[in-house]
């Protein structure tokens, strides 16, 4: 049973560019959340998608946007990249019915903005 899959694993972008990160949830999960983790800090919630809609959003600017597809996979888009966007971006999936506990995290995408 595959867990959460994220791609790419590493990415280097130039300031001002745009980036798209991808996530495939664990089988049986229908909710996808994205987190940003700066070096030495805990993950910070970006937003959550359920039924192809953004359900909750953390304290992140509109440069951060996302999408969820009918197969529950998700994308995170970041426009006008800043040096401060360099971080590990984590995708976590879960089941909306809570029949099975909580979040399963992927290994993340390491984004470096130069």
């Amino acid at each position, binding site marked *: 049973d595959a867990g959460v899959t994220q791609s790419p694993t590493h990415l280097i972008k130039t300031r001002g560019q745009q980036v798209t990160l991808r996530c495939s949830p664990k089988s049986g999960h229908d909710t996808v959340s994205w987190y940003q983790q700066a070096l030495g800090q805990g993950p910070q919630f970006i937003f959550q998608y359920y039924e192809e809609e953004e359900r909750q959003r953390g304290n992140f600017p509109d440069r951060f946007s996302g999408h969820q597809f009918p197969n529950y996979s998700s994308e995170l888009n970041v426009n006008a990249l800043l040096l401060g966007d360099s971080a590990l971006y984590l995708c976590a999936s879960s089941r909306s019915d809570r029949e099975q506990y909580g979040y399963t*995290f992927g290994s993340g995408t390491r984004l470096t903005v130069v």
Partner: protein
Amino acid sequence: LAKTTQPISMDSYEGQEVNITCSHNNIATNDYITWYQQFPSQGPRFIIQGYKTKVTNEVASLFIPADRKSSTLSLPRVSLSDTAVYYCLVDPDLGWMDSSYKLIFGSGTRLLVRP
């Protein structure tokens, strides 16, 4: 969501028992306490969850006193591979409701296990 406070770092030696305490003074009645483990360049991994008293699984034990304002994660006989960051979170059990909840992570406790 309740804020949690835990030590920034801890050191231990192989074979010792490690206890990491977390305080969550404003925990709500329907909050569960959950611990995650994170290795470098990996996502957090669920370790254990509890509501009250004691919970034990194959990895760890979780002790929660009656007032639930704190909890202690206990790792028996740690090995070098237990070196990681450990996060304590409170997680509302929404039960029959949609799980429109988000995890709030603090900075965690960096555990270093020495030979």
